[in-house]
């Protein structure tokens, strides 16, 4: 059972974005969060896990909205048990579902969300202009939200979260339901916020491609427990594979590889050989030479986050076919 995959040679970061120790939350007999020990650094982190895994409960505890049963946690240096108000002043939360008044103009909606933080009305208004420009809605700011497409609504929600320039943005399924263009722009905006704006982002999403694009780290929750945590790069390095496309005598080739103790997966002409060290390539080519097989293609297989997720889930003992399982129950 994977509890936590340690990063190789990780340098201890002094201040973490989020840190929890034995964090537990139960609702009567149901344990929503089970003894979580998280260390999330600054930067962009993906929060993964099926519905029911405890993501929402986790976010609520992080926002200081619900009381934990036991354990402790801190976010941006504030204790989640006692400093909820300060936390919510320093975080921008972008909700998953509708969270806008359809009859209000976007600019006033964003302004109000700033005022609700305690901003002066005129400052809130000027920040609202800046935020809406930033998310690409400069031209549409005086339109009512009900005239917006889904992509524009998402962008407006992001603007509401950015209005006070928070150090951490929590984005809940930011690219859900968006068409290709809007999705691209949303991801680009989030990336930009991390790199140019130097902000941290905690992105809860089931779209692995998107998480991979924006985030450097991930946290995977499953049934309230921590299933995996760490830098995506490091997690991928664990099971690097070399992919080959052969032509002719594929079965002989596969057997040859297995005989040499290599870990091989095969789909017709395509095989993936577990990378052991630099000599792996040589081994593959020598076996090919012996079997008379052509190696038409050979390259390092860049595992996607999707693949990684499947491996982790498999190791945890779940027969999961894809990260769509992260959607779990449609609510």
């Amino acid at each position, binding site marked *: 059972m994977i509890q936590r995959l340690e990063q190789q040679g990780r340098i201890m970061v002094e201040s973490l974005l989020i840190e929890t120790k034995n964090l537990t939350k139960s609702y009567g007999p149901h344990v929503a969060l089970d003894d979580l020990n998280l260390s999330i650094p600054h930067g962009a982190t993906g929060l993964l896990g099926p519905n029911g895994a405890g993501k929402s409960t986790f976010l609520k505890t992080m926002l200081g909205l619900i009381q934990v049963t036991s354990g402790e946690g801190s976010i941006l240096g504030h204790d989640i048990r006692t400093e909820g108000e300060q936390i919510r002043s320093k975080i921008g939360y972008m909700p998953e579902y509708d969270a806008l008044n359809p009859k209000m103009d976007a600019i006033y909606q964003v302004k109000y969300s700033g005022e609700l933080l305690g901003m002066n009305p005129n400052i809130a208004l000027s920040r609202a202009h800046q935020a809406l420009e930033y998310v690409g809605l400069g031209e549409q700011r005086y339109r009512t939200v009900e005239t917006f497409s889904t992509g524009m609504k998402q962008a407006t929600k992001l603007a509401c979260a950015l209005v006070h320039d928070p150090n951490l943005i929590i984005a809940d399924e930011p690219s859900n339901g968006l068409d290709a263009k809007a999705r691209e722009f949303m991801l680009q905006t989030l990336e930009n916020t991390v790199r140019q704006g130097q902000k941290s982002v905690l992105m809860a999403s089931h779209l692995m491609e998107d998480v991979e694009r924006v985030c450097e780290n991930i946290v995977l929750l499953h049934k309230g427990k921590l299933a995996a945590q760490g830098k995506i790069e490091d997690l991928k390095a664990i099971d690097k594979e070399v992919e080959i496309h052969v*032509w002719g005598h594929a079965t002989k080739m596969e057997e040859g590889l297995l005989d040499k103790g290599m870990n091989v997966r095969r789909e*017709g002409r395509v095989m993936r050989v577990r990378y052991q060290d630099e000599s792996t390539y040589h081994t593959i*080519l020598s076996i090919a030479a012996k079997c*008379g*097989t*052509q190696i038409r293609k050979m390259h390092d297989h860049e595992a996607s986050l999707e693949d990684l997720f499947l491996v982790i889930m498999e190791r945890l003992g779940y027969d999961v076919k894809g990260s769509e399982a992260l959607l779990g129950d449609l609510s």
Partner: protein
Amino acid sequence: MMPDFTQTGKSEDTTSTTKDNVPVVVFKNVSKQYGQISALTDISLAISGGVTGILGMNGAGKSTLFKIIMGKIRPSGGQIRLFGEDPWKNQSPYARTGFVPEHEKMHDWMTAIDFVTTFARLNGMTREEARLEAERVLTFVELADVMHKQIGRFSKGMRQRVKIAHALVNDPDLIVLDEPLQGCDPLARTSIMNVIRELGRLGRTVLVSSHILSEIERITEQIVILHKGRLLAIGNLHAIRDLLDQHPHKIAIRCEQPKRLAKDLIDIDEVTTVSIPAKDELIVETKHFGVVHNLLPSIIVKNNHHVWEIDNPDDNLQSILEYLTGGLP
């Protein structure tokens, strides 16, 4: 030792043919005119078993081809046979066919299982049979855990899978999918591709159309290329590539000492050009792809070259299309 395969496109993956050993879809000199416009000109093909991708840009004739296969329109010239029969105004071949059109109105208020069950009943099954069949096909397309939810709440990808599921009722031998990946998110795409490949593995004849080459490449190697109503090529894409021998094949190799490897490779008769575009890369050109690839592993191993990447930059649909159409869109 020469390997015992030919370059005409048979890979190790064998797909079973249909039950009666008659090609499932046969076109003989089929043409279709709409007034002055030729939608299809002189198309001859025979498709049987496995997944075949129908490629072509918009306007190439894909939809006309599909309409003829589905019996919606009649060819202006030539003949078509489906399971050996003329499908025009003939219901019998369609009992063994499932069609997944690009646009279809779905009944959003129904649950997935009700939708498919209703369809199955319309096909003459009893209530019990229909229910079981609906469960079977919905499980096949990996919608088992959400089959009791309303279609209106599904994502685009899930709706597509419901469409595919209902086309699979009664286990048809021929399944035709028109742009099945259109508008789907990445997860749905992977899922649908898996379903299509699985159908091919089970021996069904699957026709998939798309104008996105990378998608087709991930699904199948058997392709039909249409361009401006004409058939440009049909068969395994590597075999097609081989036939385009006026465009030599490129083999790209990344290794530590390309110059040393170059010396060894240039000795091969069939190699026409060797170039070194970067300090760790080597590109070989040859008109005899197979021969060179045959010799490659032993040469590398014998002379202890450190190679970590091999690629065929122009052995793909993109290049094939460019070469065939002279680079026209």
